[in-house]
């Protein structure tokens, strides 16, 4: 029997004028899986993430989240997803807690003020920001903003979290904290992740599957183990460069 996918991308194409941004992309992410989404700058990673989160519509193809077609029922599909699209830009005039409380109002599963407050405290604790929750976001470091970004993604108790270049600009400690947080959420809450990044070594440490694209089209996809086997002694980075220059 075919295993249900938490994210299914089927033959998705997006063009802008004469330029094809995403070309016939098809892949899936299984429940509890951390999937790395890799490609050079301008390959179409953010465009695809915008399509998955319903910000832009594909010209053709289908995107299903937990079995729900994003195009047909965007609201139902997004109720299963949390995301950081590009860098998370918060409302700088509000505290971290204030931002989360404001955004929590937009989740149908958090009806009452007490539910929203409890959920916000819960997610602040998960990302270890309870102590700084009352500070204005503009005083946060980049690492704290990324953690707050994951906190806002967790608000609706998602089954899938999409992260777009989450490690950008983070120092080694910030990257380690982020990695531990992702693994904790996967292991303890069974959340699946779809992560775009350039940091191959970092992705290798957390991802069980990879999707590699170039100029909007699929170059390779498979498990982490398969990629390591194919790359052999050259390592992932060298093999990635080879794939990009073919």
């Amino acid at each position, binding site marked *: 029997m075919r295993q249900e996918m938490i994210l299914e991308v089927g033959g998705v194409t997006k063009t802008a004028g004469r330029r094809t941004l995403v070309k016939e992309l098809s892949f899936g992410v299984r429940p509890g899986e951390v999937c790395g989404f890799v490609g050079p700058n301008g390959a179409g990673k953010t465009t695809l993430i915008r399509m998955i989160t319903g910000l832009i519509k594909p010209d053709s193809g289908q995107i299903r989240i937990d079995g729900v077609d994003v195009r047909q029922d965007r609201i139902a599909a997004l109720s299963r997803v949390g995301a950081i699209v590009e860098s998370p*830009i918060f409302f700088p005039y509000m505290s971290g807690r204030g931002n989360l409380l404001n*955004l929590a109002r937009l989740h149908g599963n958090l009806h009452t003020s007490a539910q929203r407050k409890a959920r916000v405290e819960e997610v602040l604790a998960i990302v270890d920001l309870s102590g700084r929750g009352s500070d204005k976001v503009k005083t946060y470091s980049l690492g704290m903003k990324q953690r707050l970004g994951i906190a806002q993604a967790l608000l609706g108790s998602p089954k899938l979290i999409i992260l777009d270049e989450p490690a950008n600009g983070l120092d080694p400690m910030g990257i380690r904290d982020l990695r531990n947080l992702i693994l904790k959420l996967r292991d303890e809450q069974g959340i699946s992740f779809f992560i775009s990044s350039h940091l191959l070594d970092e992705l290798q440490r957390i991802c069980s599957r990879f999707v590699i694209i170039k100029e909007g089209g699929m170059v390779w996809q498979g498990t982490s183990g398969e990629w390591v086997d194919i790359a052999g002694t050259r390592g992932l980075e060298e093999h990635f460069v080879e794939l990009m220059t073919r």
Partner: protein
Amino acid sequence: MNSLIQSEWQRMWKRKKTLISLILFTAIVLFDCLFLGVQRFGAFDNIHTAPLTAQNFSVFLLKEVSFLLTLIVAPLLIVDSINGEYTAGQLRLVLIRPISFARLFAAKWLNLAFMLLLFTAITFMIGEFAGHLLKPAADSVRYLNPAQVYDRSEAFIYALQSYGLFYLIVLAELSLVGLVSSLMPNALVSFFVSLGVLIGALYISDTLGFFLMSASVIFQLMAGSYAAPFYGPVLVCTGIGFLATMGVWQRRSWTR
């Protein structure tokens, strides 16, 4: 929808720009009151005047304040809410939630409508209060149509009606500037294009002159001497602007 409105309302009032606009606007209204307080006559236009009294003070205050509200404060706040939040990238956190884009715009529109009602009501209340404080009461007043005489309670209703008509114009402006702000690439361009549209409307058709000449149009309407249609164009601008912007929000690609 309630949650969306509350979320928007909270963000709108947390923005410094909103509070500063309200404080500055109130200060300017008070300054205008002092200015009017030392005048003996209020002018309907270049020819027609009337002695300033406690009863007609708020109407002449509206004339002084209308440009500030329609050409600066309202466009600034509308552009900030509809374009500024999006082009700054902050709205993305809202857009990726399980909500309808059209409803999100509707929530913004309703919040802005309520906020602009607040600005209009503040002007009215300050005008009534300052009028009774700075000017003598009159048993009867005349406005642009000298044949119509209003006693005190009728003059109060006249002032309320005038502010009501002004608010209708502001709502039409909200829909129009909302549409412009949804189409323009950034807040600054949105603001100046909106100004261009509001001012240029007068040159497109006299019917649309109420955006720029709101007080003058209201005086004529209340006197029964306004020749062009008013309610139709105002309602069409409000309705079409609102629906067109909802359509834009529902269909657009959110690339910021």
